[in-house]
């Protein structure tokens, strides 16, 4: 499950900047969403919403085309959710005011995994790490894992890839 949150009133998806709410019972299958932006709204995929398939602007434009409250959206930065222009028909303040104080997505930032060229894996965010029978909780922090096999501090990177000439092909 990627960037998906299940909650009592449906589902929600975030790209960090906006949250899109999905209320399946309201969908009348008008199909504006996937005709307009299949990169984001693809009913054949699970999860069917991929918030990284298009820009925030494109997602907002498409969600505003939904003729019901099946798809609605809000800014994650709450300050931006006041005085929304009425042209944004599917902002939650117009369609689903009951969600205005929904803050259950507060910590839903996905973990970032970066594969560094000729170097380690750099993993950033809030996650659990299991190794050597231990469980480590990493809270909004970063670890660097060896990818070349030559570290003396396994599983962490100690910079040895520079000496051993790690072939990253």
């Amino acid at each position, binding site marked *: 499950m990627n960037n998906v949150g299940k909650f009592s009133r449906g589902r929600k998806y975030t790209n960090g900047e906006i949250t899109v709410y999905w209320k399946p019972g309201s969908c009348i299958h008008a199909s504006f969403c996937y005709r307009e932006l299949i990169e984001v709204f693809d009913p054949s995929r699970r999860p069917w919403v991929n918030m990284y398939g298009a820009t925030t602007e494109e997602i907002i434009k498409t969600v505003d085309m939904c003729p019901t409250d099946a798809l609605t959206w809000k800014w994650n930065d709450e300050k931006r959710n006041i005085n929304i222009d009425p042209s944004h028909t599917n902002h939650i303040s117009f369609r689903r005011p009951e969600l205005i104080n929904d803050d259950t997505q507060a*910590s839903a930032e996905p*973990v970032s995994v970066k594969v560094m060229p000729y170097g380690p894996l750099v993993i950033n965010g809030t996650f659990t790490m*299991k190794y050597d029978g231990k469980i480590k909780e990493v809270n909004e922090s970063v670890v660097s894992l060896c990818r070349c096999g030559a570290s003396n501090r396994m*599983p962490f990177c100690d910079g040895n890839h520079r000496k051993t000439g790690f*072939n990253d092909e």
Partner: protein
Amino acid sequence: MTSMENGSSKKLKPQAEIEIFNKGPVRIKGNFIIRDIKRDIMETISEEIYLCRCGRSKSKPYCDGSHEK
């Protein structure tokens, strides 16, 4: 694995689980984005992935089982 530090006002839910296999790959599952800078790939994957830790995989950054040879 249950509670975070006591007294911490900010209690964040872990978004992903990273597991290191002894003499094997690292498995990542949960809510994450992988960016491979050299190969210019950025993707969100809805399942788990296994990444090479031995340096010998032919399909880096993913594990291809070469560590067993």
